[in-house]
């Protein structure tokens, strides 16, 4: 087995995004399907009943054009829907209304910051189509392979689905993850999708191949599906890169196939469906007329595009004097950036806000697997806490404990301080008494200090904090203790 060190990873992504419209793509059924009872948000059109006909949702077209503009695509002035024909039980008509050679948005790119340099990732196309229904497999483990039979719910059938396809321009699983995070943030800023990967409103498939660096020809690619978070995207692709490498190093050949990522085992497995060559028999959808996208309208949309993450990041650096990295992370999620700016309105030290959001808050959110808007912590909580530190009511150390409780209970910091009597002891008299007590109890340490052992000073401070349960103002303790010890000398 020869070790292949100089391998190049080539990744392209295919991202499906459910659009945040009120109604479905081709009918008036509500598109807010999450949590609904099966087959309660369906009509003749999205159930594919005989005789029903599609009428496209104007908003979905608008959202797709906006996305194209944000991704530097050229917006087609002539676009068409095609039928993609294949049989599958989640398909109401056994064809999907999609786009083929005339997508709404053609080409484009997205600049992605990776380890300090910017990589231009090519966008192949952005097009519009309809989502399928959902299958529930009944039988062992709910997986398709062992199922006895399956249930079909068509609520999701016909939800507007935007497909973004990238060029194979991504060089590592990490790059793929960062690209997807950037794209997600753009879509959030545009307001076209809620991009909830777990609920499936943002879905990502990846084509991945490996080749010796310098080779012109691409290696054999595999398609990886079922990656339900950024983390699992990176994990799945990292696994897949390793798998390809091992096959190539062992002198084998990678098999072109579709693989399923198993979240719990952290491995990809072959779907092992009978791989017949697909023949989708695309042809122009005869139930729909062509789209002639008005360039004046496109100009209007372009003018009215909201501030996008890149611009926002620059503004964060300029206005709030944040470092590039912090600004980048904050703007990689719209709700996080919004949270930051909301805090900044009522608290004058942006750097400290950023530290708290990216530190404590993000840490806990990650632990609990929550989004910022799903946690109990609001901007009001954070600002209040920061103000309590500033006015000396609590120490930084105490603030962290209070934050933990805020996170757990959603109580306001001031209430927590009151309830627990947590406010900092800042009275010099009170502290003096406690310090004297500490000195009396630790005479040997006092002796040590007198002998010139500086360490004893730290020990004594610790004892004071212990006696006050951490509520003593550290600066004040320091000052008073210093004085007392000088007096003893």
């Amino acid at each position: 087995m020869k070790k292949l060190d100089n391998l190049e990873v080539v990744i392209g992504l295919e991202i499906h995004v459910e659009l945040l419209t009120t109604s479905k793509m081709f009918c008036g059924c509500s598109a807010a399907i999450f949590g609904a009872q099966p087959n309660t948000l369906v009509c003749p059109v999205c159930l594919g009943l005989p005789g029903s006909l599609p009428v496209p949702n104007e908003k979905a077209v608008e959202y797709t054009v906006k996305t194209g503009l944000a991704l530097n695509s050229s917006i087609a002035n002539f676009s068409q829907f095609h039928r993609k024909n294949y049989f599958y039980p989640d398909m109401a008509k056994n064809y999907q209304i999609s786009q083929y050679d005339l997508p709404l948005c053609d080409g484009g790119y997205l600049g992605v910051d990776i380890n300090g340099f910017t990589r231009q990732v090519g966008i192949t196309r952005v097009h519009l189509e309809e989502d399928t229904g959902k299958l529930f497999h009944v039988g062992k483990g709910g997986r398709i392979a062992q199922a006895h039979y399956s249930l079909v719910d068509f609520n999701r059938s016909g939800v507007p689905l935007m497909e973004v396809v990238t060029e194979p321009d991504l060089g590592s699983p990490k790059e793929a993850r960062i690209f997807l995070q950037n794209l997600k943030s753009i879509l959030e800023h545009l307001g076209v999708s809620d991009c909830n990967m777990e609920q499936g409103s943002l879905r990502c498939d990846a084509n991945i191949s490996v080749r010796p660096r310098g080779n012109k020809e691409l290696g054999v690619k595999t398609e990886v599906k079922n990656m339900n978070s950024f983390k699992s995207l990176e994990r799945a692709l990292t696994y897949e890169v390793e798998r390809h490498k091992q096959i190539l190093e062992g002198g084998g050949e990678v098999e072109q196939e579709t693989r399923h990522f198993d979240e719990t085992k952290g491995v990809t497995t072959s779907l092992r469906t009978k791989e017949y060559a697909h023949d989708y028999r695309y042809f122009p959808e005869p139930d729909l007329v062509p789209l002639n996208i008005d360039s004046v309208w496109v100009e209007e949309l372009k003018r009215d595009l909201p501030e996008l993450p890149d611009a926002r990041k620059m503004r964060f650096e300029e206005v709030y004097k944040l470092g590039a990295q912090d600004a980048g992370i904050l703007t990689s999620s719209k709700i996080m950036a919004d949270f930051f700016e909301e805090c900044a309105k009522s608290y004058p030290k942006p750097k400290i806000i950023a530290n708290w959001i990216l530190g404590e808050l993000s840490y806990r959110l990650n632990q609990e697997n929550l989004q910022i808007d799903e946690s109990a912590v609001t901007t009001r909580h954070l600002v209040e806490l920061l103000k309590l530190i500033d006015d000396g009511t609590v120490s930084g150390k105490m603030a962290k404990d209070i934050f933990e409780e805020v996170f757990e209970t959603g109580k306001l910091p001031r209430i927590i301080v009151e309830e627990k009597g947590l406010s900092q002891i800042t009275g010099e008299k009170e502290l003096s008494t406690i310090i004297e007590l500490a000195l009396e109890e630790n005479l040997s340490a006092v002796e040590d200090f007198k002998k010139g052992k500086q360490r004893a000073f730290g020990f004594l401070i610790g004892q004071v904090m212990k006696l006050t349960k951490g509520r003593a103002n550290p600066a004040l303790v320091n000052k008073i203790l210093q004085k007392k010890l000088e007096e003893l000398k």
Partner: protein
Amino acid sequence: MELHNLTGYKLHNMLQTKKISAEELIKAVFTRVEKVERKVKAYLNLDRDLALSRAKKIDQNIKSEKKISFLTGLPIAVKDNICTKGIITTCASRMLENFNPVYNATVAQRIIDRGAVIAGKTNMDEFAMGSSTENSAFGPTFNPWNLETVPGGSSGGSAAAVAAGEAIFSLGSDTGGSIRQPASLCGVVGLKPTYGLISRYGLIAFASSLDQIGPITKDVRDCACLLNEIAGHDPKDSTSLRTNVPDYTKALVKEIGGLRIGIPKELMGEGVSRDVKDSVEKALELLRGLGAHVEETSLPHLDYALSAYYLIAPAEASSNLARYDGVRYGYRAEDVSDMLEMYSKTRALGFGDEVKRRIMLGTYALSAGYYEAYYGQAQKVRTLVVRDFNEAFEKFDVLISPTSPTPAFKIGEKVADPLQMYLSDICTIPVNLAGIPAISIPCGAVNGLPVGLQIMGKVLGEETVLRVAYAFEQNFAGMGKPPLRI
């Protein structure tokens, strides 16, 4: 005269003046049905009780009304590919034998809202694929003029019902001649309107870019009256035209002096029988006599229209019919072990041969490696056919041809040879490819079998087409009624 033999227009006036009631009328029609239906077999589904209770309700509603809408109380037969809520709609297929729509087609909703009484659902070729109604999964319909011959198709049931007096008029659908050819073979009037004039929502699709619903009636006035009721924009159909619908009865004037009529020689070629040609020639003579200029012309690409049609229509059909898979509705094969088996058994047992043939033909025409040569090329031919018609309508107000190359043929005569059957649509198909309106009206008889005259107009030229048809009809001796020896 018996009520069932009267036109909708006359019956409307009688209902308006309270000379008859809707109940009497539907009863008269059902009496006629009882007498002849077992021979004609025009209907797949008759719900007397439903129709009767509806007629009674209508009588109640209009008791005190001075002016009633045209359709109020008139019995109408509806082709069984138009969805009717709560009334089984089968498309004459095993696949939909028990299919009970949960919604009304826009056209069905309109005629119901305007007071029509649906007498029943009529027989047809399965999924509208055929020209003789022999492809019905539930047995053929028989031509009232001669029970040994076919009524034409695919709207054979709708045409035969009108000819036999089993309905006052009916709705059919026309993808390649499916209204006009049976109208011609049954000696009644049938109109295929401009593509987009009538909503397709709820019409079970055969070939979406060609399908169109239209009226089948006893005369041209009824045709105009019924068209008035069903034409107009529908927001549920993206291919529906936003156009102001005129009152088509205003077009019914006998005057056609100076009108320019073109006769495409491609539609009077070898395929057309001598007898039919003679009838058409005589009709043209009559029109000349009324002051029209009649002139032969050429639309060279019509020679390729049949080929293009038999690639485009099956291609669209192969996709439209993919939804019949046994999952959500319709027939499902029993005892299957997996999905693939369920699909292929369900479709093997649910569809008849002609449907399978066209699905396969269309699948082939769209499949990798053949798309350009077949479907792609056919779409280009379609462009040329459209251009030919556009050019012709610069010179002519209407074009005229036979509707069908032959009168009604014997039952079973063409069943074994699909291509021969396809050729019976040779005169009607170009009209669908171009999306233009065309009417078939009776213009003569051969051996006791009716011959139809096809009058084609430009896009949204229904008024001109109706005007010519009306002028001809008023000056034509007429066909009388089918002898129907029962």
